[in-house]
């Protein structure tokens, strides 16, 4: 393998470029119109335009990606996460073009991409699944039949899209009266989002944790699981903080969960990197939830506690190498790692996206801090894609030290020009429930609702006074671009300031 095309953008493209560099493989980028000077383009050896900014016209265009791979002479393709990473047609098209797909087989993607087929695989592997309808409920299944099934499972019940993910096409039903309308809504949403309106039912566990197991499978039949990741901190079903190990998983529970994960993967002959997601209930019982057949966003925390490089292992597996790792070491974390997903969102405005130009950026660094980022001062966060600008990872000897380190790193993180979720994380990491590890998948939504929009940034009186002092000095010393004048009366200076600041913002 000499040359690898990365069918993605943003921080994950940069992450894969770094793995390529360390392996002596030449990385090839693709870019949409708005990404011409994005970091992944500038850091690659070659770069190919694949169309307009909207994903369906560029990063989701299998034909253009294969064309770019051929044009560059690449011999492999890494899909990253998102976009086409779990699309079996893309994996198949890559293989059909005679290229190596860095990921599982199209068949494994297809099987585990269906929530019901994945459940069946888990059941075959002897792994408990959340009680549910078992079969997919297409449009022909009547309301009465569905009501009967739901009665068997017990309320509250979840209606979930078979092709779903990220909470889309999902409804929580508390009582039989609401069932039919919830099924209709979920089918409609799933049809729009995934082109497949089939749904299924699942019992809703009370206050479960989301625990997942990373695994690698080579082409020679070996599957190795890794120490678990704790991903229960979610906002509207989207993970926002992950950590490894989980504060509540004992070595015995780790042994059971990781064996179960490996068993599921083996049942479907799984290869390359994948993640088995579990729900862990309050009594310590765990249930298979689903499998992600790709690299996870949160893979770095596993890398920090095991000193392994998962992207490099994906590539090594794809080129036929044997997984010659010590299985015991993969389950014995050194220290504790936490990841915060820094988004271009305004936490004080209902987490609305905040695209725009980053006019100043200071990323944290130093001991135990890793910043997997594609952000840079002067660059735009475009409106077309996921607003993730950086994954900030803190690693230290223990969970309390890792929390302290993450708080220090967040304090160092300065992003001006757009809003980010940095202030939200500063708040979250100070919550007693987080510090004590007492949380579950709905904890964050509950506590956010109870705050009722109170701002995360509440500057102290002292800080506001310093801001006033700085703003006054800045205004009086801001001179126009022609270099004349300095000061004068306040109003005129303030007027000039605005123009200057805009010019400065363009740099």
């Amino acid at each position, binding site marked *: 393998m000499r040359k690898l095309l990365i069918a993605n953008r943003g921080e994950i493209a940069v992450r894969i470029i770094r793995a390529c560099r360390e392996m002596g493989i030449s990385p090839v980028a693709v870019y949409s119109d708005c990404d011409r000077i994005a970091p992944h383009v500038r850091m690659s050896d070659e770069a190919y335009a694949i169309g307009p900014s909207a994903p369906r016209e560029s990063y989701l265009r299998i034909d253009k990606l294969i064309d770019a791979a051929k044009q560059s002479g690449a011999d492999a393709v890494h899909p990253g996460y998102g976009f086409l990473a779990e699309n079996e047609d893309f994996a198949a098209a890559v293989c059909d073009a005679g290229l190596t797909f860095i990921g599982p087989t199209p068949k494994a993607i297809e099987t585990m991409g269906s929530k019901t087929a994945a459940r069946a695989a888990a059941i075959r592997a002897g792994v408990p699944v959340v009680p549910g309808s078992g079969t997919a409920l297409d449009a022909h299944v009547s309301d009465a039949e569905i009501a009967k099934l739901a009665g068997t499972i017990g309320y509250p019940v979840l209606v979930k899209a078979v092709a779903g993910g990220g909470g889309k096409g999902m409804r929580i039903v508390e009582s039989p009266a609401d069932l039919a309308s919830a099924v209709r809504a979920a089918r409609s949403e799933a049809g729009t989002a995934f082109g497949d309106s089939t749904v299924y039912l699942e019992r809703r566990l009370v206050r479960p944790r989301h625990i997942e197991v990373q695994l690698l499978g080579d082409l020679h039949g070996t599957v190795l699981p890794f120490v678990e990741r704790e991903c229960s901190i979610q906002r509207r079903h989207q993970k926002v903080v992950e950590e490894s190990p989980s504060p509540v998983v004992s070595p015995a529970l780790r042994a059971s969960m990781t064996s179960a994960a490996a068993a599921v993967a083996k049942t479907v002959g799984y290869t390359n990197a994948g993640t088995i997601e579990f729900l862990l209930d309050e009594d310590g019982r765990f249930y298979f939830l689903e499998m992600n057949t790709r690299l996870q966003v949160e893979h770095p925390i596993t890398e920090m506690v095991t000193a392994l490089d998962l992207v490099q292992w994906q590539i090594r597996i794809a080129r036929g190498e044997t997984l010659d790792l010590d299985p015991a070491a993969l389950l014995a974390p050194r220290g504790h790692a936490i990841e915060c997903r820094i988004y*271009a969102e305004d936490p*004080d*405005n*209902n*987490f*609305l*996206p905040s*695209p*725009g130009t980053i*006019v*100043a950026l*200071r990323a944290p660094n130093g001991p135990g801090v890793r910043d997997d980022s594609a952000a840079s001062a002067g660059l735009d966060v475009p*409106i*077309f*894609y*996921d*607003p993730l600008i950086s994954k900030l990872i803190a690693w230290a000897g223990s969970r309390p030290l890792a929390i302290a380190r993450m708080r220090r790193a*967040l*304090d*160092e*993180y*300065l992003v*001006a*020009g757009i809003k980010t979720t*940095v*202030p939200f994380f500063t708040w979250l990491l100070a919550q007693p429930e987080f510090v004590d590890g007492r949380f579950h998948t709905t904890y964050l939504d509950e506590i956010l609702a109870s705050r*009722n*929009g109170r*701002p995360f*940034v509440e*500057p102290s009186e002292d*800080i*506001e*006074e*310093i*801001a*006033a*002092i*700085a*703003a*006054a*000095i*800045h*205004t*009086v*010393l801001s001179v126009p671009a022609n270099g004349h004048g300095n*000061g004068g*009366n*306040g*109003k005129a*200076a*303030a007027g000039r*300031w*605005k123009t*200057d*600041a*805009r010019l*400065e*913002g363009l*740099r």
Partner: protein
Amino acid sequence: MHYELDIGGRTRRVALTRSGDDFAVTVDGRTHQVQATRIDAQRWSLLVSAPGRSDTPGRRVSHDVTIASDSTGSLTVHVGSTPVTVAVNGRRRWGRKDDGAVAGSGPQRLAAPMPGKVVRVLVAPGETVKARQPLVVVEAMKMENELRAGRDGTVSEIHAREGVSVDAGALLIVIQ
């Protein structure tokens, strides 16, 4: 030099005199000795002496400050990494929290804060709504975003239509 600065809804009167990098800055009647050294167009290093305010007279407090303008003409002053919005001499933001809605009296004109596609309209004309009640869902940057009411009121106009793409600033809903 005199300024009126709006911060967090409060107006502060600031007067300053300068001697090189050294400033005497009076905020609402309290004077601070400040050494302000410019790092670049946006960044300053302030050393602030505040005798009488601390148990240790002669303390010199260090603040790293980054100043950027936002689209509304206000300044965002990052003190360390804490952002503070400052409007100089009446250059207030035209919109505030809650999806561009302005709390208080007068009609609320809910505008799209970013380009996107209207996914759902959750209210009907004439409907009574509460502050923070979701009104419209707009999909942008791969996320569905709820735009909420800034205050209690009645829906008087609906311009948003499901499935239609909108630009930033497009008027979606008016609440009386």
